[in-house]
């Protein structure tokens, strides 16, 4: 999988710690706006393409204002695309009825819906990644918790994230020592695998016991409190309702179509 990319998570984290107007927005506003974005986008019919275009504005704005490198997001979208492509590519096979005629050139409905799937994939994935890159796991968890996510789960997310690097480091060290010793024998057989991963597991559990010792030593009694001191400012309200308004307009009226016809109308 994509686990050569531990640096990617670290990078996400770095990006999330920048200070831009988007970063300063309340996590809840961004979460809700992104949620509205995805819902609006996925509520279009299968064949919609032109009406999707105005929606590109949302992730683009987040990425630009949030000083997130576009290539970074784009690369991650490409890497995650296969599932959507594999399912979507069947559409042109099963839906061959011509649906769009440009001059003498007919495009089948299947290709239209496939294109729509790909575009919507790019937009939804891009918006989600931009959201995380300009908020960071910590503020996201705190925001989610304030919106009702059970504390146990929020704490779980934070601990998982915290120890991701540590355990992954151990895992990759193990993998490396394996590669150095087992030239030509990769991947390993089941018995060696069980031992390898089993060791990783036992070490992880031993570590969790030590973490618990440290927590108890500092007074842990079963509950972790996540400090939260944010409240909605006017900027957050503006952001949220501004975008919801835009999504509603763009969903109701096909802005691209309107633009196109305006131009066609003004052409000689």
């Amino acid at each position, binding site marked *: *999988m*994509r*686990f050569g990319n531990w640096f990617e998570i670290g990078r996400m984290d770095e990006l999330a710690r920048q200070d831009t107007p988007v970063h300063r927005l309340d996590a809840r506003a961004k979460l809700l706006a992104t*949620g509205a974005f*995805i*819902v609006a986008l*996925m509520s279009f*019919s*299968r064949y*919609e393409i*032109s009406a*999707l*275009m105005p929606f*590109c504005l949302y992730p*683009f*704005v987040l990425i630009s204002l949030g000083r997130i490198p576009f290539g970074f997001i784009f690369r991650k979208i490409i890497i995650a695309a296969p599932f*959507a492509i594999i*399912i979507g590519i069947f559409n042109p096979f*099963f839906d061959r*009825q*011509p*649906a769009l*005629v*440009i001059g003498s050139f007919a495009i089948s409905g299947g290709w239209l*819906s496939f294109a*729509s*799937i*790909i575009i919507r*994939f790019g937009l939804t*994935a891009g918006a*989600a990644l931009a959201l995380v890159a300009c908020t960071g796991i910590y503020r996201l968890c705190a925001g989610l918790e304030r919106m009702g996510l*059970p504390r146990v789960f929020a704490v*779980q997310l934070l*601990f*998982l994230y*915290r120890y991701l690097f540590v*355990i992954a480091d*151990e*895992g990759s060290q193990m993998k490396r020592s394996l590669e150095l010793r087992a030239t030509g024998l990769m*991947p390993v*057989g*089941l018995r060696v*695998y*069980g031992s390898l*991963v089993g060791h*990783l*597991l*036992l070490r992880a*559990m031993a570590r*969790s*016991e030590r*973490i*618990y010792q440290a927590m108890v030593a500092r007074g*842990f009694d*079963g509950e*972790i409190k996540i400090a939260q001191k944010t409240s909605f400012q006017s900027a957050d309200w503006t952001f949220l309702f501004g975008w919801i308004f835009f999504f509603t307009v763009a969903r109701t009226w*096909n802005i691209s*179509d309107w633009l*196109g*016809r305006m131009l066609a109308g003004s052409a000689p």
Partner: protein
Amino acid sequence: MHMADALISPAVGGTLWVVSAGLIAYCARKLKQTMRDNLVPMMGVLGAFIFAAQMINFSIPGTGSSGHLGGGLILSVLLGPHAAFLVIASVLTVQAFFFADGGLLALGCNIFNLGFFPAFIAYPFIYRPLAGGAGSVSRSWIAAIVAAVVGLQLGAFSVVLETKASGISELPFGTFVLLMLPIHLAIGVVEGLATAAVVSFVARTRPEVLAAAPVAAEDKTGLRPVLIGLAIAALIVGGAVSWFASTHPDGLEWSIAKVTGKEEISGSDGGIHRKLTAVQEKTAFLPDYGFKSAEAAGVNAEKASAESAAVESESWPAVTAGTSVSGIVGGLITLGLVCLIGFVLKERRINV
């Protein structure tokens, strides 16, 4: 098997979100009551372990390919169903957030598909009874494989149902099932093998780890979420089947009729067309539910009769050559504008 947003309708995504959120809340509450303090760091670390374990592959006996651990079953073995479900959900959440592996709207579906079945069905109803107590080694291997296969088959089937109910993919139900289930049968076997390999190692070296897993009492009281989940699954299946039978007029057919001048599709391969029609009928129904107000404005509403307008809004705007060109041109212009805006915003010096 992580579903993307692009294939889920808001209705399906929202429903499964409610289900998953409910399950998370239930497990959280259950854990608060019964949890040993030291589960907090353990759950976090084991979630990290799952990520790390997925980096390491093993060669599948008999084939030339390799596989790795998914994690749902082994988490259930180590932590019991409720904690395992939360850990699986957290792993999927991190994958969705940081790797775009699975969409945000689809996260509810993914948590249900990949979490509910291993933790609440495969583990308590298949693994535990089959593996027995300390039992024989071969029994635990068989238990792991069967449990993993069943869990993944159920999950894969859910993926099919959810995708079909969303109506965005054109894959016919039968084909989709034939595509997903055999592949996930193989994946299930791999998962079972990997799980059994690790469990047997731990059983050999540190059996007290397995003995300490929270089990027993919780199985009885843990029955409720299973029943609820099954009820919901039954609802989804029932809904899907009823939609199959729906005879809602099909927007695509109408539009095609307009383009080709024929009133009905008379295809030579009648079988496929009939299947297609059935698919179109079903899929045309759901995606726009709740958004019929979208037809209110725009050129399309002016066209022909109210009925045509209602039907047309369910298909797509570009039907005749005129509107299709304007749609394309307008789309390109919009995209260009958006890029421009993005570029300008990026270059501006924003005073902090």
